[in-house]
């Protein structure tokens, strides 16, 4: 068979290529590449795998590799810890799959009016959840939203120290530690192992006029509500520090909007809103603040605003305070901005409009009910305990110290029952050896929870 043109490269047909070359007035593509000196040229052929030229073979090939995974489609998953299994409504998938949104990029709000409006609407809904008037276009993920919030605060008050809870997600903490370098000092606030809550005394001890911001998470990494959040904010404010609150926004149907307990800047993760887990690949962070120049002027992200057009009654959109950005000012801009996670932001908006206020409340309440039920069931197991009594949302710690099996062993045995057990905490937080972090969402029904409990029971007893 003659050489076939590449379906993704229309001009790869020999005759067309020749026609183009002729028009250009050259005989070979090398006449263009000759600008690259020989010694800089790659001499040879790329050593990459043989292609699967037909779409059918390609699909089979990739599917075969992917089938080596085991997923939450065929396994019961109880892992959370920054990525949570929520149900993704079909409408979210539909909108995400539309080529218009999927393959847009940096067009202005004329030809890309829809993209701007969509992201403006997402910002509007997030703003309502946290009760703040300014919300950015999405960042890479929550961890990125945190560090950008911290640096915003540092620019606002010119101070160079941030207090973060030692209880925060170890993974997000790694991002914070790197991103604050070299100029912002990161100090951890201790937490009480028994309540999983920040030690107010330690906070007080560490607060000073040098502290730029105090960051907390609510619920925290372990799922517990930071009961003294309001107080923490007050303390921060006493020292003139910005109070930054990180949230899993799916809790905000039942939990107070952070602005209402004193947050100056709120950040968090949009993944629970219509995005599948995708091995942690579908994260998207947001930042919110009061609509004051002091804050808005410090966002590194793009900001989309609504504005009139020359057509009476028409909504137009555009970039707000674009001069802030590194696009406009290079190193003089606020941090940096680039391709982030716009599509995920759009989907989060679709999700919020679908679920609505009542749905979000039901979601939150239903999750808490499942957790309480599961806690009770866990507590009934011999050798298993619920070490922390603080009210929690979606996640909580289970202590297996009383069992003869380690968390790792239990998880391995659970896998054989098609269950992904809780996240092993011992490796991540020295305070919680032999503990695991379990997550329950609306995807779990009573049968699922009972299956988990029964399987653990069997594992504990059997071995």
């Amino acid at each position, binding site marked *: 068979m003659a050489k076939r043109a590449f379906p993704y490269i229309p001009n790869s047909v020999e005759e067309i290529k020749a026609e183009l070359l002729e028009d250009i007035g050259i005989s070979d593509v090398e006449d263009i590449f000759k600008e690259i000196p020989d010694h800089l040229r790659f001499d040879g052929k790329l050593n990459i795998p043989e292609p699967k030229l037909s779409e059918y073979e390609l699909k089979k090939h990739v599917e075969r590799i992917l089938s080596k995974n085991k997923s939450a489609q065929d396994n019961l998953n109880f892992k959370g810890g920054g990525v949570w299994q929520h149900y993704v409504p079909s409408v979210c998938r539909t909108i995400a799959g539309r080529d218009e949104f999927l393959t847009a990029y940096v067009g202005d709000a004329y030809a890309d009016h829809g993209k701007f409006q969509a992201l403006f609407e997402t910002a509007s809904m997030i703003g309502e959840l946290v009760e703040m008037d300014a919300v950015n276009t999405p960042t890479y993920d929550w961890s990125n939203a945190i560090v950008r919030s911290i640096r915003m605060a540092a620019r606002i008050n010119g101070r160079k120290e941030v207090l973060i809870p030692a209880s925060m997600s170890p993974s997000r903490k790694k991002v914070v530690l790197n991103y604050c370098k070299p100029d912002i000092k990161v100090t951890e606030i201790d937490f009480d192992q028994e309540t999983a809550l920040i030690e107010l005394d330690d906070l007080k001890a560490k607060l000073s006029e040098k502290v730029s911001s105090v960051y907390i998470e609510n619920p925290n990494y372990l799922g517990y509500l930071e009961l003294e959040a309001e107080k923490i904010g007050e303390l921060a404010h006493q020292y003139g520090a910005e109070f930054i609150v990180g949230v899993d926004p799916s809790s905000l149907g039942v939990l107070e909007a952070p602005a209402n307990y004193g947050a100056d800047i709120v950040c968090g993760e949009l993944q629970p809103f219509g995005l599948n887990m995708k091995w942690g690949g579908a994260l998207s962070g947001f930042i919110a603040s009061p609509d004051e120049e002091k804050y808005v002027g410090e966002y590194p992200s793009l900001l989309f605003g*609504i504005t009139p057009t020359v057509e009476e009654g028409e909504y137009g959109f555009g970039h707000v305070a674009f001069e802030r950005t590194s696009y406009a000012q290079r190193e003089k801009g606020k941090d940096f901005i680039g391709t982030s996670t716009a599509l995920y932001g759009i989907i989060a908006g679709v999700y919020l409009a679908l679920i609505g206020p009542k749905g979000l409340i039901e979601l939150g309440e239903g999750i808490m009910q499942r957790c309480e039920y599961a806690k009770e069931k866990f507590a009934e197991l011999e050798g298993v305990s619920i070490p922390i009594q603080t009210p929690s949302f979606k996640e909580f710690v289970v202590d297996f110290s009383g069992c003869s099996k380690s968390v790792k062993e239990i998880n391995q045995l659970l896998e054989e029952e098609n269950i992904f057990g809780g996240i092993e905490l011992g490796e991540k937080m020295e305070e919680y050896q032999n503990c695991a972090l379990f997550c329950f969402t609306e995807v779990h029904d009573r049968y699922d929870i009972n299956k988990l409990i029964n399987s653990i029971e069997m594992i504990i007893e059997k071995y």
Partner: protein
Amino acid sequence: MGKTIFRENFHQADWDEPIIYEMSTPGVRGILVPEPDQKIKDRAGDVLAKIPASLRRKEEPNLPEVSQKHVLMHWTHLAQETMGSNLTNDISEGTCTMKYNPRINEELVENTDFSLLHPEQSEETVQGILEIYSEFENIVKEVSGLDKATLQPGGGNHAVYTAASIVRKYWEEKGELEQRDEIITTIFSHPCDAATPKTAGFKVITLQPDEQGLPDIEALKEAVSERTAAIFMTNPEDIGLYNPKVDKFVEIVHEVGGLCFYDQANANAFLGVARAKEAGFDMCHFNVHKTFGTPHGGSGPGNGAFCCKQKLAKYLPVPTVEHDGDKYYPDYDRPHSIGKVRDFYGTAGVIVRAYAWVMAMGEEGLRETADISVINNNYLYRNLVEEVKGLSYCYPDNGLIRQEQVRYTWKELTDDTGVDTLAIERRIADYGIQHYWTSHEPWLIPEPMTLEPCESYSKDDLDEYIKVLKRIAEEAYQDPEMVKNAPHKAASRKRKDDNMLDDPERWALTWRAYQKKKDKIHAD
């Protein structure tokens, strides 16, 4: 050849769409959440009562209440009001490599064997995705010629920031960070090559071009010193010129002990043609969402594949993906690591797509990509410059052959007619084409326009583009006001006053802010 398309009667979808809040009616539902069953409720008791008053939500969050049909309808309208590159002749977004994003790859990432993986699953249960990571790392290593890669960064900026973090760590471990506080870049390198080193704490030195428009080697010689931590540079820079002395730049920086980072975000036209290795770079990155055919998503999710030489490998963010001879595993045990730049493993879906894209192309396909990209660009630019009145391009007399893109200038047309590049950029949407990319800041080239006709575009597309710009130039000469008031047939008309968006009193980032500021915004 098809007939040259010219969308004379084009009009973009314009649904005159309300804001979602204007479609809200109390009580309406878009979807129902699965309720826990009665037994769960009974045992759980009143869970909300356990939340202390200060943390308990007092009022329903003010979300819109809209039926499922209307939610779908609304966002479908907004979608139609957006010009995705898969739908259009998107040569416009120069520097962005708007190539075809194959639909099959979207099917692959919807596969639950991928979409329903939790990142904390045991390595035994994620061998498939680890294999794809590993395979794709091998591909970018081969394409760059470097030794080790990470796919954690969420985009190009993020990868360059990762580079800056690694440079910092490198000097920190050498104990020279205090001294090595400068990173050099060039003005035609992407803004991120300046902004991310700055964010990472470096002083940034920016080189201006020489009279050919190339990075100025003399300026570099002056700039380097024992304070030089690294150079961060793009090549070809975003005006489309290949710097033939790029290896000299590397040498000069290496001579003072500095590291060299190659911003290869858009490596599309050089796949299998030229690599970071041959030019001597220590590090580079690829914008996976550009070079490897994954969709841009309206601005992400993207991915930045960062590659480096062995000596820097130990600084890579954790985890790296390794193979123990038997199976793949994520390696967290890397004491010299910078830590993390992003939670978990990065935008895994982008990697699955990119891997599939490469596997659809193969070595020959990658090379064909490069060839056709530069051929397309040279065809387009020669014809544009010949046929379009008032249009020229940067450094026209430098004798250098353009590679994958060209920075044009409308200066002559603007001088003649008063119609500037921003007007033309708006007007092009009236012919069904995405607004083109002017230039990064600062605009060293006046009234700029940057086009990148990568391999996805047919000769018919190139001819359409030429015809449209030719027409618009004619319009500018004949009816400049009409062009200035463009767009006329896009989803939105011209903003009344762009200054509003810079005015704290009149900008509005959310619907709730708009409600409060409406009067000021509409006060004329």
